[in-house]
């Protein structure tokens, strides 16, 4: 059994009335009571104007940040009350991140960058590299394993980052504008890859400003002023991918 398929009946993600307030004068309410449920195997876009709280939401789902109040459950694991150490464990085992800026370590080969996805699991280096090689194969970069990031195109870099995000078989993959730094062609190939991973059963949330892209995904969660403005599931697209 792999971790990327949550137990039957348990949602991959559940948020109940999540509030995030940044201290200041006056305090900024980035999230103003967000409730959300994402089932295992869903592919959803998070859209909304700049400053509406999309990244904040993704950080809280990814346990990089804590909500001011509310409940966050990942694959049935309640994260809101966890210690910093336990949250690190959640990130290393249940979550894969993809960022707009890739965040690959320079001076490290593609395969080593991907193997870093398993670094904090206490797995032996040889096993990490083997899993990394498989993940790189999966994203179509089996022939670029020994390349350092500066020898890869933007699209290739993002695919390496995606391989790193999936190498630990997370129950949910979170991507913050993964195509934001790419031209339309390599952005398109990255999205093709993400759709393929979804078809293999992975749960994926993508923040995007690209309306066309969002419209092509089975579910769209629209944010405005820290609230979920609308949450639409497109039955035809949903059925098409299942």
């Amino acid at each position, binding site marked *: 059994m792999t971790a990327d398929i949550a137990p039957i009946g348990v949602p991959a993600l559940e948020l109940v009335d999540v509030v995030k307030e940044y201290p200041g004068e006056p305090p900024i309410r980035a999230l103003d009571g967000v409730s959300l449920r994402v089932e295992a195997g869903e592919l959803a876009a998070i859209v909304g104007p700049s400053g509406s709280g999309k990244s904040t939401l993704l*950080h809280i789902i*990814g346990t*990089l*940040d804590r909500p001011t109040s509310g409940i966050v459950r990942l*694959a*049935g*694991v*309640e994260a809101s009350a966890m210690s*910093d*150490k*336990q949250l*690190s*464990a*959640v*990130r*290393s*085992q*249940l979550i894969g*991140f993809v*960022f707009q*800026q890739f*965040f690959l*370590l*320079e*001076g*490290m080969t593609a395969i080593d960058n991907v193997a*870093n*996805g398993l*670094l*904090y*699991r*206490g797995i*032996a*280096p040889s096993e990490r590299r083997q899993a990394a090689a498989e993940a790189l194969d999966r994203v179509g970069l089996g022939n670029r394993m020994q390349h350092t990031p500066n020898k890869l195109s933007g699209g290739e870099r993002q695919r390496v980052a995606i391989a*790193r995000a999936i190498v630990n078989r997370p129950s949910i993959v979170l991507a913050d504008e993964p195509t934001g730094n790419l031209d339309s062609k390599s952005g398109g190939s990255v999205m093709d890859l993400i759709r393929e991973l979804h078809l293999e059963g992975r749960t994926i949330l993508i923040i995007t400003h690209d309306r066309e892209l969002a419209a092509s995904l089975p579910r769209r969660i629209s944010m405005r002023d820290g609230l979920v403005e609308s949450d639409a599931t497109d039955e035809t697209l949903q059925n098409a991918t299942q």
Partner: protein
Amino acid sequence: MIATTATPVPLPNSRLRVGDVLRVGASGLRTRRLRTGLSTLGVAIGIAAMVGVLGLSASSREDLQIKIRALGTNLLEVQAGTGFGRGSGTLPDTAVAMVSRIGPVTSVSSIATVAGAVRRNDTISAGITSGISVFAADPGLLDTLHATLADGRWLDAATSTYPAAVLGSVTAQKLGIVDVADQLRVRINDEWFAVIGILDPVAAAPGLDRGAVVGIAAASTYLTAGAAVVPETIYVRTSDADVAAVRNVLSNTVNPATPEEVQVSRPSDALAAQEAASTAFTSLFLGLGAVALLVGGIGIANVMVIAVIERRSEIGLRRALGATRAHIRRQFLTEAILLAGAGGVVGVGLGAGVTAVYASIKHWQIVIPPIAIIGGFVAAVVIGGVAGLYPASRAARLPPTEALRSN
């Protein structure tokens, strides 16, 4: 089986293997080679200074110890004269006989300076070899001083009366004589003297190295026109236990009439004093080394603080991949320790190298105390740890979301 509740099984903690801690710590250095090299330099210089100072002082101390052992602490030197400077006067010609009557004295010999110029042949002017003195000594001097010969023989009862000379080591070198088998002669004043032996450097009486030694009888016959040669310096060897007792009675024995005009000294004391003086320098240089180390440590702390600021996004990424605060702290601490440790290794090598080179130039035995090697390395590691403490905890405290918000 125990009934399970809805509470999910807690996830195992994130874990970073020991080997991976080192690998991750080193990876930060590999990508910034120039900066790594430069920031290592401060610690390397400090450690090199300390190891070098400890090594050099140990080597020079060892050399002095060897000299003192060769000299023996039971050798006493008696000279005439106060006020006009040491060795300016002469001792009564009965002195040697009187001293040899002291019970614990095992041997006594005398030596005197004779006016004369030494030349290789009669065509070269005396000026060329002006630094060379002529000494008249008795046959027992070699044993009393524990001196040794590089070549040939020392004066005996017979050769002491002939025009025969034994050359000091420097004299032989200046005159270009290396082998007595060549049956060479030297000209002292207007007489030819056969070279029968060449001395090794004499620790007890370094003046002999720049001298030519002839017998007392020969000196009087060939160099002073018959005038008696009176002893200037007497060397006395005693049994080890009675050095102090003999020293106390020497002045009165040598010159009962005016004992205050007699100076008694122990040649090994000068070397011991030299040894003591060198320790003072050692602590001075150790202090300077410590300052260099402190500066090096501050340099490493500085470089690490910059690294933490520059690598915020790396820190954020690692947290996103599951690193705990402790893992981040460990990574940067390891990096600082590796930086300083590399400086330590280079410094120890450099210090040992300097010691080896300098000691061999000085013809000292090379001594590098193990404590300097181990201590130098440990000091570097400790400095790295201390210097890395603050930057590492800053890196660990950085909130992941802040670290990921680049630009």
